[in-house]
C-alpha cells in the first residue's frame, strides 16, 4: 500500500504565544516546535498499516525549513521517505492554501491512502484533510478510530457524537482524518534515527497559486482562563451548583 501521511509542525503545547506588532500573528522565534499530536497518531496508524499490508509510508509536510525536524522525526519512526513543500507562510495560512499546496506536490504520486490528523494544535481548523480530499478527488471520512483494508476496499470506524460509532465502507484511494489516542505511539528508536539520516526528502516549492481566504485582523488573549472553581455551601447546595455548571458551563452532561 502506498500511504501518505500529512503532518504539521506546531509550537510546543506549553509555549506561551506572544502577539506580533500588527496583532495579526504570533512571534514564534523563541518557540520550541513539535509534531502536531493528532498527526502523530495518523503517522502511527500509517506505520501500522504498512506493517500489516506492506508498501511504503510517505510523509508530507508544508512549512519553512524548520519543518525538516518533524520530517526527520517521522522518518526515524519508520516512514520511508518525505515530501517537504517549502513555504514560509504555511503556519499562518488557512486550510485552503495548505491543502492546495500539498495536493500539488502529491499529485504526481498515486497514493492508495492519505492520512491526516483530525486538526492541528495551533489553528485547529479541522479542514485541511477534507479540503485535500476534495482537491485530490478522493472520498474521505473523518474522526476515524479504526482502519481495515481488505483487497482494494476500505472499511473504517467513525466516531459520532454521544458515544456512537459507525462503520463506513469506501473504495481506495481515499483520505482519512484520524482521531487522537487510538493507538500507542511508538518512540523514535536509535536505529530509526540513524536510518532516517539516509532517507530521501523531496523538496517542492509552493507555487503560490493557492491563497488563504481568511485573514486574522486582531489577535488577543481571551478573558477566561482555567482556574479551579471551588463550590461551597451545604452538600445539597454544592451538588445543585455543580450539576448546573457541568450542564451549562462545561457542557459535560446534558
Amino acid at each position, binding site marked *: 500500500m502506498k500511504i501518505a501521511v500529512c503532518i504539521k509542525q506546531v509550537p510546543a503545547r506549553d509555549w506561551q504565544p506572544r502577539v506580533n506588532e500588527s496583532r495579526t500573528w504570533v512571534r514564534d522565534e523563541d518557540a520550541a516546535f513539535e509534531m502536531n499530536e493528532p498527526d502523530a497518531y495518523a503517522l502511527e496508524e500509517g506505520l501500522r498499516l504498512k506493517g500489516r499490508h506492506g508498501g511504503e509510508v510517505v510523509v508530507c509536510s508544508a512549512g519553512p525549513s524548520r519543518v525538516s525536524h518533524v520530517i526527520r522525526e517521522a522518518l526515524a519512526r519508520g516512514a520511508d521517505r518525505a515530501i517537504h513543500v517549502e513555504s514560509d507562510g504555511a503556519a499562518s495560512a488557512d486550510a485552503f492554501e495548505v491543502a492546495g499546496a500539498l495536493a500539488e506536490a502529491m499529485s504526481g504520486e498515486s497514493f492508495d491512502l492519505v492520512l491526516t490528523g483530525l486538526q492541528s494544535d495551533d489553528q485547529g481548523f479541522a479542514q485541511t484533510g477534507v479540503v485535500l480530499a476534495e482537491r485530490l478527488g478522493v472520498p474521505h471520512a473523518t474522526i476515524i478510530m479504526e482502519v481495515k483494508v481488505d483487497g482494494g476496499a476500505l472499511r473504517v470506524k467513525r466516531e459520532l457524537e454521544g458515544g456512537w460509532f459507525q462503520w463506513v465502507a469506501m473504495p481506495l484511494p481515499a483520505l482519512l482524518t484520524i482521531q487522537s489516542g487510538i493507538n500507542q505511539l511508538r518512540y523514535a528508536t536509535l536505529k530509526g534515527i540513524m536510518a532516517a539520516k539516509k532517507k530521501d526528502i523531496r523538496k517542492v516549492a509552493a507555487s503560490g497559486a493557492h491563497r488563504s481566504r481568511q485573514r486574522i485582523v486582531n489577535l488577543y488573549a481571551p478573558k477566561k482562563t482555567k482556574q479551579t472553581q471551588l463550590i461551597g455551601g451545604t452538600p445539597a447546595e454544592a*451538588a445543585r451548583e455543580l450539576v448546573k455548571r457541568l450542564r451549562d458551563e462545561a457542557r459535560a452532561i446534558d
Partner: protein
Amino acid sequence: MILVVAEQRDGRLNRASWEVVAAAQRLAAKTGGAPIKVALLGGDLAAAAGELSAAAVAEVLTVEQAALEPYTADGFVAALAQLVAGQAPTYVLFPHTYLARDFVPKLAARLDRALVADVVSLAEADGTVAFTRLIFQGKLAADVVLEGEAPYLVTFQAGAFSADLAERGASPAPVSRADVTIDAALIRQKPEAPFREAKQAVDLSQAQRIVAVGRGIRARDQLPLAEALAKALGAELAASRPICDAGWLPIERQVGSSGQTVAPKLYLALGVSGAIQHAVGMKASKTIVAINKDAEAPMFELADYGIVGDLFEVVPALIKELQR
C-alpha cells in the same frame, strides 16, 4: 440572505441547530437585517421541519431525498452545492458538530469559497463583520475576516450561542421543499448503521464519563454509593491503586501512569488524593471534578470544579440532583 443548515438524526433536531439559528439572528442584526432561511437535509424531515418553523426565520427548506439518508459526505455536499447555487445566500451557517466537520470543508472546497470554523462569537473589524475563534489551545482569540466572494461558510462552536436566545416567530415560518438531483451512483461512502459499543469488557480508555474512587471511600461496602453515582451519570467506575490493591475493584479499573490512561469528557474523582501516578493517567480529561475532605489534595490543582467536603454527604445530594 443567511442560510442556516440545521442538523437532525432519525427525525430529531440537534440542539445545536437552535444555537445556530440564534447566531444567524445576531449576524442578521449586524448585517442590516438580512432574511434567514433554515435548511434541513435527510430522509424524513416533517417533524424536524415543523419544529424549526417556530423560529423567527423567513422560510424552512427541506431537502428530502432517499439518497441523503443515511448521511454521507458525498451526498450532502452534492445536495448543498445545488441548494446554495439556487438560493444564493451571503452566509451559510452550520453548527460545529462531528457531522459538520465531515462535510462542510468539502462543500467549501467544492464551492471554492471561504470557511471559518469553530467560531465562538461575532465581532467587527474595518466596518465589516469578523468572526472570533480560539487558537493555540484557547490561549489566544483571533478575529477573522473572510475574503473572496459570497457565500461565506461559518461553523459555530457548541454552546457559543445559547439555544434559548433563538427568537421564536409570531407565526410559523413556511416550510417548502427544495429540489435537488443527486446521482446515488456518485456517492462513494457506504455507511452501516450506527451503534453503541457493547459493554463486554471494561475499557476505561473509551469511556466518555468516569467516576473514580480513592481511599476516601474508606470501605468496600461503601462502593455502591460510587456505583450509584456512576449509574446516574452513565459513567464507568474507576479507581486509584490502593482500591485495586485491596481487591475492592479489579485491576482493569485502575487509572494510573502505566496501562490505563483515560481522557473522558467528564472525570469525577471521589476521595482521590491525586498523587502523581494517578494524575498522569487522567489529566487529559476534558472536565475534572474533585470531591475530597482534604483541601490540600493535589487533585484540586487539576480539577475544573472542586467540592471540599464529605463525599458521603455530597454524593447522595449529587445523585438526587441528577435524577431530577
